[in-house]
C-alpha cells in the first residue's frame, strides 16, 4: 500500500515538474473552446450570469430577498466547479488516448490539465459572481478571507476525484453514463438553490448528510453570513484527505496499466 502510494507520488511529482506542458495544453483547451467567437472568454461568464439570473428570478419570489440572491450566486459557483469535475473526470483518460498511447508523459499530467481547465472556467464565473454577490449584500468581513483556503481545498479535491473516477471509468465504461445521470440528480439533491428550511425532514437530512453541501458551505457561508462553517471545514478536510490518499494508491497501482484499457 505504501509502495503504491509512493509510486503514485512519483507519477504526480513528475507531472508537477512538467507544469509548463499541462499549463500550455490547458490554455489551448480553454482558448480552443471559444476561438473565433466575438465574446471569447466572456462566454463562461455570461453562461453563469444567465443561469444564476434565471434561478434568482424564478425561485427568488421576484426579488426583495437579497439573501437568496447571494445564496444562489455562491452555491452555483461551487456547483459548476463540482459538476465540471465529475462530468469531465469520467472521460478523462479516454479523451487522452492518443497521448497515453503515444508519449511517456505521467498520467497525472492529464488530471492536472483537466483541473486547470475547470479552474480557469470557474475563474470567469467568479468574475460574474462578484457583482451579483455584492448586489446580494455580501459584506467584506474578515471571514471572507477564508474563501481563499476554501478554494484551495476545492482545487486539491478535484485532481483526487479526477484520478479515482478517471481510472474507475477506464475499467468500467458504464460509469460514464451513471455519473452523467447522478450528477444531474445531485444538482437537485444538493442545496444549491434551495434552503434547508427549519432543517427538518428530507431537506434537512440532505443538507447535513450530502458531503457536497459542505464543500459549498466553506465557500458560501463566509460570503452570505460573514461566518466560517467550521463543521463543514472539518468534514471537507477529512474527505479530501481520504480521497487524496485513495487517489495516490490508485494512481500507483494503475498508472502504467491504464494504457491497456483504452
Amino acid at each position, binding site marked *: 500500500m505504501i509502495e503504491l502510494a509512493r509510486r503514485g507520488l512519483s507519477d504526480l511529482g513528475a507531472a508537477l515538474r*512538467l507544469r*509548463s506542458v499541462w499549463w*500550455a495544453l490547458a490554455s489551448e483547451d480553454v*482558448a480552443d473552446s471559444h*476561438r473565433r467567437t466575438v465574446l471569447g472568454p466572456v462566454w463562461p461568464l455570461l453562461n453563469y450570469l444567465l443561469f444564476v439570473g434565471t434561478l434568482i428570478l424564478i425561485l427568488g419570489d421576484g426579488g426583495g430577498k437579497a439573501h437568496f440572491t447571494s445564496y444562489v450566486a455562491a452555491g452555483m459557483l461551487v456547483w459548476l466547479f463540482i459538476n465540471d469535475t465529475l462530468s469531465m473526470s469520467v472521460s478523462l483518460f479516454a479523451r487522452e488516448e492518443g*497521448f497515453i498511447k503515444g508519449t511517456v*508523459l505521467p498520467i497525472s499530467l492529464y488530471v492536472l490539465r483537466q483541473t486547470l481547465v475547470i479552474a480557469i472556467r470557474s475563474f470567469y464565473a467568479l468574475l460574474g459572481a462578484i457583482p451579483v454577490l455584492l448586489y446580494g449584500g455580501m459584506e467584506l468581513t474578515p471571514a471572507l478571507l477564508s474563501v481563499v483556503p476554501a478554494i484551495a481545498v476545492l482545487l486539491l479535491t478535484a485532481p483526487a476525484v479526477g484520478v479515482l473516477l478517471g481510472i474507475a471509468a477506464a475499467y468500467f465504461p458504464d460509469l460514464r453514463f451513471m455519473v452523467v445521470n447522478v450528477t444531474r440528480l445531485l444538482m437537485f439533491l444538493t442545496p444549491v438553490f434551495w434552503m434547508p428550511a427549519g432543517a427538518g425532514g428530507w431537506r434537512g437530512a440532505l443538507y447535513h448528510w450530502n458531503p457536497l453541501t459542505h464543500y459549498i458551505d466553506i465557500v458560501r457561508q463566509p460570503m452570505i453570513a460573514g461566518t466560517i462553517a467550521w463543521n463543514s471545514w472539518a468534514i471537507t478536510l477529512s474527505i479530501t484527505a481520504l480521497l487524496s490518499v485513495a487517489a495516490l494508491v490508485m494512481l500507483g497501482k494503475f498508472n*502504467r496499466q491504464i494504457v491497456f484499457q483504452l
Partner: protein
Amino acid sequence: MVSIRATNVGLRYPVPRDVKLKGDTRTTVGGRFFAGGGRRYVTALDDVSFELRAGDRLGLVGGNGAGKTTLLKVLYGIYEPSVGSLEAEGRRDALFNIGLGFRHDATGRRNIVLRGLINGWSNREIEQRMEEIVEFSELGDFIDMPVRSYSQGMSARLAFAIATSFEPEILLMDEWIGAGDKDFQEKAKARLEKMVTKAGIIVLASHNNSLLGRVCNRIISLDHGRIAWDGKADEYFARPGVK
C-alpha cells in the same frame, strides 16, 4: 554510455470483457491468447532478451502483429513489461505518431512550442530550434497561420521538421518516415539519414528489407511475440528465402 538491456521481457494485456472469443484462438497473426483468473489475456511479447550498445542498429522484422511495434513501445516506455526487466541508458526518442497533439486552431509556431514541451524540451531549447524548424519546413509566412489552414502535405512537413530537429541518443522508429512532395522528400531523406548516423542506438521496425539492409547491422525476427531469429544483418539477408 548509451545502452539497452532487455531481460526476459514479456508483455501481456487483458482482452476486454465484452469481447467474446470463439473456438480456435491459434492465429497466424498477433500474440497468443491464454486464459487465467477468469479472464483472457493476449501475450504480445514473450521472453524477449537482447542487449544493445552504442553503434548498434537493430532492425525488427516479422509479420503483422508479431510484436514489432509493441516491442518499440516497451523500449520507449509506453508499456511497462509484465515480466522481465528493461534497462535503458540514454535519452530515448521515438518517431512514431509524429503528428500527435497538433492543435488545428493554433498557429504553426505555437504548435512547435507545444510539441517541443511534450517532447520534454526546455523553453530555451524550443527557442533555439524554432527558426531552424521553420526554415526546414519551408512554410514561410504560413507558420503564423492556424494549422487548420494547412494542406495535408504542409502539416506533414511541419510534423517531420519538429520530429527530426533533435539529436537522439536512442532512436526508435516504426517504419521509415517521410513527408511532403518530391523535393521535400529528398530533403527529408537526407535529414533522417544524418540523424540516424548521429544516433547512438537505433531500433527500426520495418517490412522493407532493402531499407533494413542499408541501415541496420543486426536483425531480430519476431514471431508471435517471441524472438525467432537474432543475429548479424548480413547473415540474416544471406539466409535462403530472405531477400
